């Protein structure tokens, strides 16, 4: 009996074929041009998700009964810098939120000033890009309230959030567009589940931008900069993870 195709040769060639295919896909995956093609689908996600329904539609809100037993912390657990540690030791009494850049009236707010402003409390689901979710109750001042005080100039198109923590030696930052900036659920939160936000969850001030994934929710926020473009900040992609790991700037999916 002639055996043109032995089982061994079949398995070997299948493995080689699969291996070739895989390394071919890896080469494609590493090529910037091909990445741009793949990433074009993310533009479609952005356009379609923004086109669906009311652009100010609220993310789902939950009840106390739905809270996660413990709100998971990810990324930086403690900025650990001398300044941050000193500020934490006195309950962040000296913490300043600086509004800079394209504002008509740039100004600073202390934590106590922020706490005396109108507040919004919302129980929302935090969705991580990795796949997990945690439900927490956040209290903070609506970002819109601060923007109305500082007054954006017409040129401003994005808000950049500067943070006190560094990851792998680079300062963490994030950015959102004005649609999300003026969304009613976008708040600068200082309370989580009825207590001051813990250090691991971003004390004393964390951005909540509920219709996007967790990495957009900048922790340890020290400044909000209004800008016309993002390409001259950090490595130019609009955020820490966008710069170092190619996460999408628009994180609605």
């Amino acid at each position, binding site marked *: 009996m002639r055996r043109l195709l032995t089982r061994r040769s079949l398995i070997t060639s299948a493995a080689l074929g*699969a*291996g070739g295919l*895989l*390394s071919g*896909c*890896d080469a494609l*995956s*590493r090529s910037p041009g091909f*990445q741009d*093609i*793949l*990433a*074009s*689908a*993310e533009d*479609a*996600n952005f356009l379609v*998700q923004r086109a*669906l*329904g009311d652009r100010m*539609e*609220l*993310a*789902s809100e*939950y009840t106390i009964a*739905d809270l*996660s*037993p*413990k709100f*998971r912390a990810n990324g930086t657990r403690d900025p650990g810098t001398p300044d941050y540690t000193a500020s934490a030791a006195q309950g962040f009494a000296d913490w300043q939120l600086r509004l800079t850049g394209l504002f008509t009236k740039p100004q600073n707010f202390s934590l106590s000033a922020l706490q005396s402003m109108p507040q919004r409390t919302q129980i929302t*689901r935090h*969705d*991580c*890009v*990795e*796949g*997990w*979710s*945690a*439900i927490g109750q956040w209290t903070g001042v609506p970002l819109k309230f601060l923007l109305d005080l500082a007054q954006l100039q017409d040129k401003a198109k994005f808000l950049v959030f500067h943070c006190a923590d560094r990851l792998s030696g680079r300062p963490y930052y994030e950015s959102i567009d004005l649609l999300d900036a003026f969304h009613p659920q976008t708040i600068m939160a200082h309370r989580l589940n009825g207590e001051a936000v813990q250090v691991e969850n971003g004390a004393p001030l964390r951005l909540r931008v*509920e*219709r*996007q*994934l967790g990495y957009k929710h900048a922790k340890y926020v020290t400044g909000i900069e209004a800008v016309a473009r993002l390409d001259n900040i950090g490595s130019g992609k609009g955020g820490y993870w966008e710069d170092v*790991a*190619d*996460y*999408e700037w628009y*994180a*609605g*999916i």
Partner: protein
Amino acid sequence: MTFEMTEMPKAKNLRHRRTTRLWHWTNALCLLVLIMSGLTIFNAHPRLYWGEYGAVGDYAWAAVGSSETLGYVRLGETKIETTGFIGNWRDSDGKIQTWAFPGWATLPSYYSLAEGRRWHFFFAWIFSVGLAFFMVRSFSNRHVQRDLHIVRAEWRPSHIWEDVNNHMRMRFHVPDAVNIYNILQKLSYVGVIFVLLPLMIFTGLAMSPAMDANWPLLTDMFGGRQSARSIHFIGMFLLLVFFIVHMVTLLLAGPFKQTWAMISGGKREGASDA
């Protein structure tokens, strides 16, 4: 001078219409990419939960365990060791890796959540648009009504049981009616095309925080984002089962002839050439 033309069989004499063939291969490529890139995404957090929330510290009904010496899959309280395959495996350089799914099963073969997501969403668009197009076209060209519609007599348990028996004895078709799909074929094709594949799209969308704001009902109907993620994963597993059965029946029914028919269209038995 006249030419003797070898005429292409007319569309109605083909076993598989052009739309079916085009969609079949597009879909095959999409599913391959979607499953492999999906496993890359799963590797970022290899735990599955029921309900709205779920993170490290919450109870996972399924989880992959990893260490430098051991890999295992835990389902409920049952641990199954998977060292060498899941949770602990060697990459092409012989180095031990502790990501959940091994490099040969993921896209890209190395861990990159961002690249995995890009592959996934790009092919998800092609897959979704292709499926929608195929569904509409299959009704308008009467593929569904003619070939996949299940008539009342076929729903009889005795008929289904008879077909199960025929399959067990490797008899897949009534000998003089190979073009007619049997009840198990109809059930699996209808189940995959009209239930399982749309389910994958909707559970996928249900995981998106922006879709949660736009269409909260979507996440609610699956019982929460983490339930949607679990169903998405189970659906992927069912698609793999379908693929394996599809391949086994293909091998038993004559792989070359069947594959060529899905490429060229083939010829319906009993149809004349002219």
